């Protein structure tokens, strides 16, 4: 039961933290709740399809197909996060102004809502399909259904709780710093996901490693420990990264920063 809870917690945590960050980052944008729900729904549907495909050992998930699918999902999320941050860099001021006005419901634009839904769907789909497969493996491994069910609920509950704590924590940030903080969170989130995608493309043999395991900080901070995993999700911590992952990480940071600050250069 405890093993089930711990592993499900770890699967749910990643999706929950990503959703919490993008929810925070779109604070004040009208109708975002509906879009997040749509994203969660689509993600659960996608997770069910992936889990179903895995049961038939479909070509999509065997051979090198799975790594390509993961890379495609991650890179889509990176593009959406980039779009979101670029949009925010030119709209944060109005959102901030309207948030400060008492009881104002912000109506400025609906642009990042598609991005919000897609990011949510991608995160839920990736982690959801793994959670389903894991539960299946546990069930087949002989753990009783009751104890598995309790463990699963504890794990999912704790993951969602962690997500909502992060969201509440974000909301405590004063409005004048709020969008700066969420933009930086999304920047590092995107860079970390991009490095993960590079790892999958290298795993499929499509990109050179450019040095596998350039360093290893496992002894200092185990990637599978709670702190290690939190940092892995939030800023892309990898205990033993390859050169191509570092390259993707830095390139993503650079490109997003460039796009975020471009309008300001123009106005100079």
């Amino acid at each position: 039961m405890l093993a089930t809870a711990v592993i499900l917690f770890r699967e749910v945590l990643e999706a929950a933290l990503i959703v919490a960050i993008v929810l925070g980052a779109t604070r004040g944008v009208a109708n975002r709740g509906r879009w997040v729900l749509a994203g969660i729904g689509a993600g659960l549907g996608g997770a069910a399809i992936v889990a179903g495909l895995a049961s038939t050992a479909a070509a999509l998930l065997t051979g090198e197909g799975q790594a390509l699918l993961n890379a495609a999902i991650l890179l889509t999320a990176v593009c959406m996060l980039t779009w979101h941050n670029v949009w925010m860099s030119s709209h944060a001021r109005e959102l901030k102004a309207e948030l400060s006005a008492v009881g104002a419901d912000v109506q400025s634009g609906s642009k990042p809502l598609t991005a919000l839904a897609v990011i949510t769907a991608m995160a839920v789909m990736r982690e959801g399909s793994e959670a389903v497969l894991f539960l299946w493996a546990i069930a087949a491994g002989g753990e009783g259904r009751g104890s598995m069910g309790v463990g699963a609920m504890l794990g999912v509950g704790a993951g969602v709780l962690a997500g909502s704590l992060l969201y509440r924590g974000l909301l405590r940030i004063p409005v004048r710093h709020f969008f700066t903080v969420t933009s930086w969170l999304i920047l590092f989130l995107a860079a970390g996901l991009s490095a993960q995608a590079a790892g999958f493309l290298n795993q499929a043999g499509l990109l050179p490693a450019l040095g596998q395991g350039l360093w290893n900080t496992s002894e200092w901070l185990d990637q599978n420990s709670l702190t290690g995993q939190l940092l892995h999700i939030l800023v892309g911590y990898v205990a033993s990264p390859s050169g191509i992952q570092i390259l993707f990480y830095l390139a993503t940071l650079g490109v997003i920063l460039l796009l975020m600050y471009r309008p300001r250069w123009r106005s100079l």
Partner: protein
Amino acid sequence: MNRYRWLPAVMLAFSGLVSGLAQGADSTAVITIHNGKFEPSELHLPADVRSRITVRNQDAFPAEFESVPLSREVVVPPRGEVSFFVGPAAAGRYGYFNDFNHDMKGTVVLEAAGGH
């Protein structure tokens, strides 16, 4: 003229990428999941070259092959198989486990050529 200054750099990067791809797999190995165990539990491969590993699942339930030092993570469908590349990496012992069942563990041992 000047506007194509970046061309040599792009071509160099591209040729580097292609040679990385063309380098090919120098060895292939199979790890089998059978009765809740990885076989062989210790897989020996040459160090400093890229190798292709196929994980074949003969059991009726899914597994997730995960190695932190090799930074590989892949779900192995029941009665299915997945393939992926590792390395080139330095000689040494690289542990892995089944993320769906942490009691299932194994090691990939990369050995320097010539055995010096």
